[in-house]
């Protein structure tokens, strides 16, 4: 604000001259608010400018007096100490000097502060600064509205009456919705202005009653986790969500909002053990429809193929669900169908996924799918697609030899079971042989064949002729000898041993070590020694 100037004062004239002269020596047009503030300061403190620029001694006596009077003016307490007469003189002098009584304060270097990027706000352009202050006022405004929301909600909680209308305060869904939007705007503004971060949950009025429990490292922990000060955005969200999870778990709250919280955390970290277990508790407590939960789980499973927790969760769901629907045959059939369909989807992505096969066995046991034709057909299809899929072979063995309708309960995989029907044994021997023909150097069906013979209590010699078809002219010279499968040689060694034909057995083992499976030479040598015992 330019000083009032009624003429008379030398100082004021000088100031005027200075202002008039400015067009000639190109005035620096203020670019940023720091310059504007300084300009205002100089403009309203002309005497001070001389002192600061040239020194006190350059003032004429009248200005010196004005300068001192102005300094005195800045501490009114000292003026009160003056006698009435001196006070009158003081004001007269000031009036005569025509000095601006309302003057800007001298800017301090640190008065503007820095924004979240470390930039000095003093370096803002007027436009930037205006936008900045506008946002600041918006924050205050939103903050205040938010306070009102909380106050009204508190009133609603205690069923307080509005003294004017006589009605009980109420909070509507719309109020909550507006509050949520308000907080989102607040968070965005605070983040923009100050870099402050608020979690999704702190933003949500529905979570206001929960006090998050942050992760605490025990003092002097041996292996404290060195969290970086500047978390990546995703980490911040996760850490905040976890703090809310801890809080609701302590309270043992089992509500829809907690279910959503677990979903959010599982999305970010599906390997988190505890959150799955908590989720199951919620599902149970809320008596949720299990098929819905399974459907949700299907999507998560397809995204995280190698995760242990999803499969345990699935088992828990089934264990919980099955007893209540067991008696409804159609429901069980529908469940089996949808589960098998899902397993087919997931096996398409990874045909040897251990978790999936393990769960498949659990499912067969649980729902009693032993004699389900589809199940056997699916396995045959998988084996025909990839005859080397050992997981599928293993499952077939399980389906046939653990089937309670045609086996002894608890019979080990490695022992004879008299309860298995002879036609089943014959069928499986043929099946194994048929698949061996497709890929003779594939160990899975060879192992399978041996397993079937043991289960059926049959001598290995049962398949002697079959195995011999893979070998031609053994030991009759490199050019004549042909071995289509080292596994056949391996089995033949045992078959000959069983039949007491030691020399033939020894030849098989020797040729394995010498030529057909040299990497395991020591093993074959050991087997040769065992022939002698």
């Amino acid at each position, binding site marked *: 604000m330019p000083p009032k100037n009624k003429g008379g004062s030398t100082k004021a004239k000088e100031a005027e001259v200075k202002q008039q002269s400015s067009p000639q020596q190109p005035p620096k047009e203020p670019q940023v608010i720091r310059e504007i503030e300084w300009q205002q300061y100089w403009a309203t403190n002309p005497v001070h400018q001389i002192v600061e620029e040239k020194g006190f001694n350059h003032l004429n006596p009248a200005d010196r007096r004005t300068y001192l009077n102005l300094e005195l003016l800045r501490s009114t307490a000292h003026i009160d100490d003056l006698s009435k007469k001196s006070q009158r003189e003081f004001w007269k002098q000031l009036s005569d000097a025509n000095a601006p009584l309302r003057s800007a304060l001298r800017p301090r270097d640190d008065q503007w502060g820095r924004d979240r990027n470390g930039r000095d706000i003093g370096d803002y352009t007027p436009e930037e600064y205006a936008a900045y202050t506008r946002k600041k006022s918006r924050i205050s405004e939103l903050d205040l509205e938010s306070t009102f929301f909380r106050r009204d909600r508190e009133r609603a909680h205690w069923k307080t009456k509005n003294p004017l209308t006589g009605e009980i305060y109420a909070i509507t869904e719309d109020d909550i919705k507006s509050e949520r939007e308000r907080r989102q705007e607040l968070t965005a503004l605070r983040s923009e202005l100050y870099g402050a971060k608020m979690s999704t949950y702190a933003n949500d009025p529905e979570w206001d009653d929960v006090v998050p429990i942050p992760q605490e490292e025990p003092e002097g922990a041996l292996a404290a986790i060195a969290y970086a000060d500047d978390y990546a955005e995703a980490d911040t969200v996760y850490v905040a969500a976890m703090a809310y999870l801890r809080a609701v778990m302590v309270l043992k709250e089992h509500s829809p909002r907690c279910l959503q919280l677990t979903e959010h955390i599982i999305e970010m970290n599906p390997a988190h053990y505890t959150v799955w277990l908590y989720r199951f508790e919620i599902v149970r407590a809320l008596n949720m429809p299990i098929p819905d939960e399974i459907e949700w789980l299907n999507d998560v499973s397809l995204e995280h193929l190698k995760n242990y927790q999803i499969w345990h969760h699935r088992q828990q769901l089934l264990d919980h669900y099955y007893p209540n629907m067991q008696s409804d045959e159609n429901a069980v059939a529908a469940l089996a169908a949808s589960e098998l369909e899902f397993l087919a989807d997931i096996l398409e992505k990874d045909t040897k996924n251990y978790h999936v096969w393990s769960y498949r066995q659990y499912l067969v046991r649980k729902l009693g799918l032993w004699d389900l034709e589809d199940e056997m057909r699916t396995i045959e299809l998988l084996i025909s697609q990839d005859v080397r899929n050992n997981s599928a072979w293993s499952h077939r063995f399980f389906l046939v030899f653990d089937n309670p309708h045609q086996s002894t309960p608890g019979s*080990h995989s490695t022992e004879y079971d008299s309860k298995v029907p002879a036609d089943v044994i014959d069928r499986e021997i043929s099946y194994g042989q048929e698949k061996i023909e497709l890929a003779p150097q594939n160990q899975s069906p060879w192992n399978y064949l041996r397993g079937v013979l043991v289960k059926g209590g049959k001598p290995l010699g049962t398949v002697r002729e079959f195995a011999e078809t893979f070998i031609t002219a053994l030991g009759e010279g490199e050019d004549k000898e042909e071995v289509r499968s080292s596994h056949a040689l391996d089995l033949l060694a045992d078959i000959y041993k069983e039949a007491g034909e030691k020399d033939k057995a020894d030849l098989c083992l020797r040729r394995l070590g010498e030529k057909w499976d040299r990497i395991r030479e*020591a093993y074959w040598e050991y087997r040769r020694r065992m022939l002698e015992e």
Partner: protein
Amino acid sequence: MLYTVSAVQILALVDAFDDLETRGTGKLKVAQFMAGLQDREKGTFAGDEWGEEDTRFLYGALNALSLLDMLHLVDVDKAVKHVAACANFDGGYGVNPGDESHSGQIFTCVAALTIAKRQDLIDVDRLAGWLAERQLPNGGLNGRPEKDEDVCYSWWVLSSLSMIGRTHWIDREKLIGFILRCQDVENGGISDRPGNMVDVWHTLFGLTGLSLLGYPGLDDIDPVYCLPKSTIERVMQGIA
């Protein structure tokens, strides 16, 4: 369970069982926690109070409890019976009875039976034959038939073979060569297979594998506990 087992192993490694008594909750309490996770009917162990069961947990419990000399708190016979039921027609062991044979699971089952002094239940030659089949022409070992090789199986397969005294059934030089090819020769560490990113997991199992193969300059490793032999000797002496 898994964290508790790791904690006991680390305490064993740094000879700090006494501190567990003076500064911690005491080994009895730790052992009681693990013992509480056994299903007394089936003999299995759960991973925690919510009950996911797996031979990994059973092995972990026997591992830590034997180090603490607290095996008497659990029903070892029932546990043994469960492990025996996990044996498969092909000679291997799976996660649960009937599950496909898997090298990692074989390690847990064989080690559990070794701790329980019940190796007599293993069909040694059949199992070792299956394990020896895990070596591929490039020297590396896989975890299941027709799967790819991976350095971590150097440990699961080799330690199992070592426990039943059959490490010589695989080609030592070829496996050493494979593990060494998995090294990052510039920055150190070992990866799952040549040219991949190294990590602590595969570095550990590469090194312990080399140790079992008698590679020069490495301390002897105990195949049951995956801890230095000297550590196990010290702990077991304290028990005896």
